[in-house]
């Protein structure tokens, strides 16, 4: 087993066994989506219109939930220092940790999306579009969040700082994710263009996130 796959499996095991793991994020997602109709009213037509936006906001917030523990837990028990001293490039190490976070925190959200879409009176096509855009877009959220997690790793109040740092950077992902979902249902444009931009954002974040996070860790923990 290579060090990276070992790290991936370890992180996934920890995420699933400690603190409810994947289910916690889904539960939060469900709660947020349940709260929205209380705020905007039970009008099904309106919910159908703003449904993709609600699902995206809910997933965005839910993906932030476990982010502050992504590196902070390892920092507290000292295993992050071992990872820093290891021979594996730190960029790949943090990428593996991000992958574990995505599989345990974001993938369940994507899987839960169809059910929550039914609550919001979405058509099957719209549900498919939202699930697909979330599947493609959430890795970008994780990688951008990784930067925030690395910056706030050693802070006592990092949990509060992280969303403040990360959320403004997720604006493009949110815009194109919701736009692609809406385009699939209503138009006026084709689904392809915003979806391609969303893919590009994810690929860009996959490069930027690990490098920036590794730099932040090297500078922050020496």
């Amino acid at each position: 087993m290579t060090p990276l796959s070992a790290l991936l499996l370890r992180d996934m095991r920890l995420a699933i066994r400690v603190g409810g793991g994947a289910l916690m994020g889904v539960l939060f997602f469900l709660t947020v989506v349940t709260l929205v109709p209380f705020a905007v009213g039970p009008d099904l037509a309106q919910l159908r219109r703003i449904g993709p936006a609600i699902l995206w906001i809910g997933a965005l917030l839910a993906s932030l939930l476990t982010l502050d523990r992504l590196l902070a837990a390892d920092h507290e028990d000292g295993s992050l220092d071992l990872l820093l001293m290891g021979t594996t490039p730190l960029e790949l190490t943090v990428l593996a940790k991000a992958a574990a976070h995505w599989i345990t925190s974001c993938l369940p959200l994507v899987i839960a999306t169809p059910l929550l879409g039914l609550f919001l009176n979405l058509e099957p096509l719209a549900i498919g579009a939202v699930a697909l855009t979330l599947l493609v877009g959430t890795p970008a959220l994780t990688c951008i969040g990784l930067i925030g997690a690395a910056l706030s790793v050693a802070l006592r109040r990092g949990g509060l700082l992280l969303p403040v740092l990360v959320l403004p950077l997720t604006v493009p992902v949110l815009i194109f994710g919701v736009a692609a979902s809406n385009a699939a249902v209503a138009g006026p444009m084709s689904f392809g263009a915003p979806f391609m931009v969303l893919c590009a954002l994810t690929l860009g974040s996959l490069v930027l996130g690990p490098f920036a996070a590794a730099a932040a860790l090297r500078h922050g923990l020496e």
Partner: protein
Amino acid sequence: MALIDLANPARFLALTARILPWLATATVVVFAIGLYLVWFVAPDDYQMGAVVKIMFIHVPNAWLAMGVWAVMCIASIGTLVWRHPLADVAAKAAAPLGAAFTFLALLTGSLWGRPMWGTYWVWDARLTSVLVLFLMYLGVMALWRTVDDPSRAARAAAILTLVGAINLPIIKFSVDWWNTLHQPASLLRMGGPAIHPSILTPLLVMALAFLLLFFTLHLAAMRNEILRRRVRTMWLMQAHAAS
């Protein structure tokens, strides 16, 4: 005197002590000229009336809102590459100034928008991306305040600044795209084909005035930060000696 000599904080303090009064005077003079031009030379707009004067405050602030981030970027590269404390100080001193200029740009824009559009806020592409820029300034300032150790805070803020610099054009592009999707006819069409010289000259003078104001405040804030760090060091030494 070579530029590298400036990197010594003591030399920097000595030099800025000599420069600052001149810079402050120049700021006041250019502001006086600029405000004279704005109030007595620049004509009122035939549509907007005297409200157009807000532009002479609003546009320089908006330019500086972006320019200060660029200054922070250069300082951040200095922090990460050369690990120089003076670069840390420059980045730290610039952040609140940038936030203030961004806030003023938003505030004047909103006050301008009230008579023009009938509302204080429109989700126009420009306004929205400046708002995101403002949030990012506040994020950088929050990061500076949360990390205790100054040099570690500097490197964390430097990485965030550079990540922000990569992301800001993407955010700008996305918001433009989002905006054209939502409201095809933009309300705000600044500039147009050409600006008449009677308006352009006061605008450029005011921009120079605000630029000088930024330099003055930035140097003063850097001096304060250096002195604050010295005081902190002295306190620590005193506490150490007493124990």
